[in-house]
């Protein structure tokens, strides 16, 4: 093996070991914990769109978004803009007039996972969320909570 090839092999071995070490040292941050309940694939919120305002716990920033429910699937318009989350099945359970919902969405092109959990009653929504990015060298997470009301479907809505 030529000296240059040996040098490249040594560096590749160290690079591979270093990458593996960093990945092992990278501690995970768990997603938003959704309470145990009789969750079932949902249709109770189909056809509803909610305009929400959420506050990010880490820096107090306010974010607006539209949460859409259609044909048993869920989508966040803002998340779709940041990454290709698409539509994801959502689950519900009903407690009197309160409809509890949850959805776990994953981006198809990047390692982002967003977990949603909330309640809808009388056209009002309250929710919590966590956005977790899991890369091989670190895990980053932001969490937030917010409220909102029923709204008209956005004009530039992503295709269902």
């Amino acid at each position: 093996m030529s000296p240059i090839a040996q040098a490249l092999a040594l560096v590749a071995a160290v690079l591979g070991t270093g990458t593996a070490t960093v990945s092992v040292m990278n501690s995970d941050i768990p997603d938003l914990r959704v309470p145990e309940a009789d969750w079932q694939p949902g249709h109770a919120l189909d056809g509803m769109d909610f305009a929400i305002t959420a506050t990010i716990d880490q820096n107090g920033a306010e974010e607006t978004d539209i949460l859409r429910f259609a044909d048993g699937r869920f989508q966040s318009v803002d998340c779709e803009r940041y990454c290709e989350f698409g539509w994801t099945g959502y689950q519900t359970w009903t407690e009197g007039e309160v409809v509890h919902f949850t959805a776990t969405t994953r981006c198809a092109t990047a390692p982002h996972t967003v977990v949603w959990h909330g309640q809808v009653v009388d056209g009002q929504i309250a929710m919590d969320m966590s956005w977790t990015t899991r890369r091989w060298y670190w895990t980053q997470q932001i969490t937030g909570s917010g409220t909102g009301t029923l709204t008209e479907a956005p004009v530039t809505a992503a295709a269902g």
Partner: protein
Amino acid sequence: MRETPVGAGPTLGGIALRVLLLITVAVAGTWAAHWVRDALDMTIMPSVEMQVHRGIMFGMLAYIVLLAIPFVPGAEIGIALLTAFGASIAPLVYAATVVSMMLAYAVGRLLPAGTLVRLLSVLRMRRAAALVSRAAALAPDDRLALFLEGAPPRTVGLALRHRYVALAVIVNVPGNSVIGGGGGIMMLAGLSGIFSPVQTVLAVAIAVSPVPLAILLLGA
């Protein structure tokens, strides 16, 4: 009052004071970094996460390459990343530092000295080329002694017998930029031919661990 003889080494009290000062500076520096990070609000929002990721990957690549080159300042990139992102980026910076050191070692060990001198000259790195040229003309043990220029002869013998410990110490000594910094030291270590790859990786992995470890522990 008894005067300290001229040329005598530091007293125990003096060493203790310097260690205390070093710890104080390290703690104050970490606190200042936290304050800067909070002031800049480094919360990584979804809208900028991809750009941050690309910036980190590019920064790490530049860090590895620059740190491996003698007399080229590269440590500042790692320090900037540690300041901006804190403990969460420490494992990556640590691994990149080890990779960079081993890259310099591999280049020194496996490329012919003449080729290395020509390569550094073409890249206009005259100081690095001169260092390698000077080392190439020496016997292997004498190349190691380049690390310890100006040190007592007994130190050189001790360093040869415990060369991996000596390597780990020299990599961390302030002012080692006069012999090319970490990249220069590792390139010379490879060039000397008396450092085996596996033991060198272990020595380097231990040598460069204090700062990332401190940040991980203080940032936790």
